[in-house]
């Protein structure tokens, strides 16, 4: 007992400057293992939470007692930590952070103005397997226009890399095994996440990305359609990342981690069109925007087509009529479809063996005097309401009078072309869908087969001037009902809205 081990002669004087010595004990300042934010820059709220839960061996019930967040076991914790501001504040407080880190806010990562809730529809936890293995997750990897990890060069995943099941992000786990899949594999490695460092290159890239996104956000606004569905396909098509990053984060190439996996789903079903300011724009018709105000009504019925857009609508009707299979339209219906472009039916035209249909005759643009009227009943409301949204995004709270006074005629022309582009394609979709009830052969023709699509628009301004309008068309799911039934249901919803609005006004 009490063996005194003779120690070597050690001199500490001279090994360390005196002013580096402190009379105070070194006390950790972070309240949980793995909660030091400075070492994982730009980490997401969920990534931080997942790391803390794993390193501190926390159980789901301790989310409430230690981190101040109440969730149900069935809740997707990644969605909760991304979209619930209250939960983010609670966790930030528990981690003794002065405020919620801006990188936890999903809209910080958007290169356009839009609310964070935009991504809530269709949310799926998406990650880089190599980053997550080290306990690092960033909301950059949730952005639909990013397909690869910029610093690991591997494809992002939203499933278990071992069995393909969805990632176990629910608030339900066994202590020390959060995110562990049913196949017993975990995307987190406890030993690796103790290092608590962001992967090499992550800080530089995320800093550059956030800088770029902030600059873009000051210029671009996303116009979200009414009753928007899953935004990811549209956003993936709309957002254009800077050229040098394109290969690093978007292009799908064979690489070590994803060689055996399928590439991300193609975006071929999404059509994108970019309109830019034209120096040779015609002089504006100032009444155009006033006429478009009609689309703001609950049930707009007929639109007095602005003169600038009338030829576009006429062309849509005429082009479709000329492509229809034989015996689709009667003589009279055909002449109504072609009236807008002022031509007669071709000699090869073979009229339908049925009686003139009042419903079909109302589909092409109608004319009273020199004015064109467009039947909006055959246009899905998400299309014409988006036109209103587009106008609002460009006007930015200004009234039409001010806009006319301040905007150049090139800007005005671009806005009108953008509205026309949205309206014309929506009208074309609606025409095909409604006509298909009378002409079932349309379903057999790939180009003419009925389909409804939802437009998403990215409006960009440079130096305060509207410079481009980028439109993405995303297929609208109609289920088993069929496109015409969807249009009819949308109109009935408009009617109900119209009547309830009228009652409110009374």
């Amino acid at each position, binding site marked *: 007992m009490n063996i005194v081990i003779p120690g070597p002669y*050690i001199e*500490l004087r001279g090994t*360390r400057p005196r002013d580096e*010595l*402190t*009379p105070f*004990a070194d006390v950790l300042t972070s309240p949980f293992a793995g909660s030091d934010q400075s070492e994982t820059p730009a980490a997401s709220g969920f990534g931080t939470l997942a790391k803390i839960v794993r390193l501190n061996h926390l159980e789901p019930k301790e989310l409430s007692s230690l981190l101040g967040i109440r969730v149900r076991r069935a809740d997707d914790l990644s969605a909760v930590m991304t979209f619930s501001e209250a939960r983010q504040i609670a966790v930030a407080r528990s981690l003794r952070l002065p405020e919620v880190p801006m990188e936890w806010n999903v809209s910080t990562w958007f290169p356009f103005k839009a609310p964070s809730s935009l991504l809530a529809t269709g949310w799926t936890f998406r990650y880089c397997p190599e980053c997550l293995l080290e306990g690092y997750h960033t909301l950059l990897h949730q952005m639909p226009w990013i397909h690869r990890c910029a610093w690991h060069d591997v494809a992002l995943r939203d499933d278990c890399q071992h069995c393909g099941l969805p990632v176990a992000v629910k608030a339900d786990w066994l202590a020390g095994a959060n995110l562990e899949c049913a196949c017993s594999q975990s995307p987190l490695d406890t030993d690796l996440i103790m290092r608590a460092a962001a992967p090499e290159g992550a800080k530089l890239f995320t800093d550059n990305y956030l800088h770029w996104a902030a600059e873009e956000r000051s210029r671009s606004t996303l116009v979200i359609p009414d009753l928007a569905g899953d935004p990811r396909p549209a956003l993936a098509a709309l957002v254009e990342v800077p050229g040098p990053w394109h290969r690093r984060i978007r292009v799908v190439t064979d690489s070590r981690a994803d060689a055996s996996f399928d590439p991300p789903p193609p975006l071929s079903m999404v059509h994108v069109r970019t309109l830019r300011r034209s120096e040779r724009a015609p002089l504006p018709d100032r009444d155009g925007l006033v006429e478009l105000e009609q689309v703001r009504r609950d049930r707009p019925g007929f639109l007095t087509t602005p003169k600038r857009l009338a030829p576009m609508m006429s062309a849509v009707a005429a082009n479709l009529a000329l492509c229809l299979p034989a015996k689709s339209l009667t003589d009279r219906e055909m002449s109504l479809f072609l009236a807008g472009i002022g031509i007669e039916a071709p000699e090869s035209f073979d009229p339908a063996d049925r009686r003139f249909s009042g419903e079909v005759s109302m589909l092409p643009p109608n004319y009273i005097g020199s004015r064109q009227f467009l039947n909006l009943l055959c246009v899905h409301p998400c299309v014409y309401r988006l036109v209103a949204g587009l106008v609002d995004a460009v006007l930015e709270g200004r009234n039409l009078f001010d806009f006319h006074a301040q905007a150049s005629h090139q800007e005005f022309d671009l806005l009108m072309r953008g509205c026309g582009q949205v309206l014309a394609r929506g009208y074309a979709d609606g025409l095909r869908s409604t006509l298909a009830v009378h002409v079932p052969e349309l379903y057999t023709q790939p180009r003419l087969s009925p389909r409804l699509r939802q437009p998403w628009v990215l409006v960009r301004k440079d130096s305060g001037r509207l410079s481009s309008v980028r439109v993405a068309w995303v297929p609208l799911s109609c289920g088993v009902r069929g496109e015409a039934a969807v249009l009819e249901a949308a109109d009935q919803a408009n009617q109900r809205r119209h009547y309830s609005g009228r009652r409110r006004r009374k």
Partner: protein
Amino acid sequence: MTTSEVHPLLRYKRPLIFTRPGERLAGATRASIEMGCDALWIEGHGRVGKTFGGRQLVQTDAWRPFSMYMTEFTYSKPQKPTEGYFMTSLLTQMGQSVAASASSNMLLARVVRTLNEQRVKRSADMLGLVFNEANRFTSEEYEHAMSIGNEFEKTTRVFYLFINQSDAGQLGRGDTDARPPRHIFGRYFINSHRYTGLLWDVPKDDRPHQAMSDVALAFLEYDEELTWPEGSGITFTQHCAPKAWANGWRLGAQIDMIRKVVNEVRSEAGLPLATSWPMLTFEKFVYTVLVRIAMEDENFLELTEAQVREVLYRVGYLEIEPGYEGVVA
């Protein structure tokens, strides 16, 4: 005025200095680690500077045989020394949030993970945990410390420094049983180190390396090593007694006179000749001499015997000396 603008001797907590007792502790710790021991039992009277000796080890790494993450804990005296209490105490001292309802095995896992995270972040090979007031440990606390050691043993190694105040309890080893269970005894009670105050004479073993006494070296810290403002080269003694400094006066220059007065004071109180000087009263002595005497008297040139005697009484030199029984009223 912010703290950094105030001279370190005038701050609410005065600076740490390197001391020979601390260096001897470093040597003993290094030898124990190299030998493969699990712990070093440090004993010493109250106020000799054990805590700051331990802190000196935490803040320096030249003595370490392997790369280490070191941290220090202190321990209170619970009614019931449960594992949950022990682990919660460690986590709380590391600034960690702890739920009241957490089970002890989860808390153990958290302690291990938290310490291991710090170790891994520093790329250290092993851990060193300094337990202050280990005299408050019962054999149950040693069991808990062993649980932590067992967890670390799977992947790395932990070395404990148990700092005991030998005059704090009744049973010598704090309140621990005179003979703890063998598995605990074998791990933690084998090696010990006697921590002393600053020695007046150089111990025999140190003579080949050490020319000056511990007290002289400690005075040298104020005379030559501690400077303020940073990078100015103005030592603490020079700052407080500029005129005396210019005349060649140093704290260490009067060490023989100080020792003589110390021994006189001791003999008047019925105490034997001084062998060591507890850090508590030494540091207060230096503060009083430099700040209250030299700094307040611009004509100060050197200490007188009367001043040294008065300072010794003022800093309570006798009160903490073992064997002192007070003045008869």
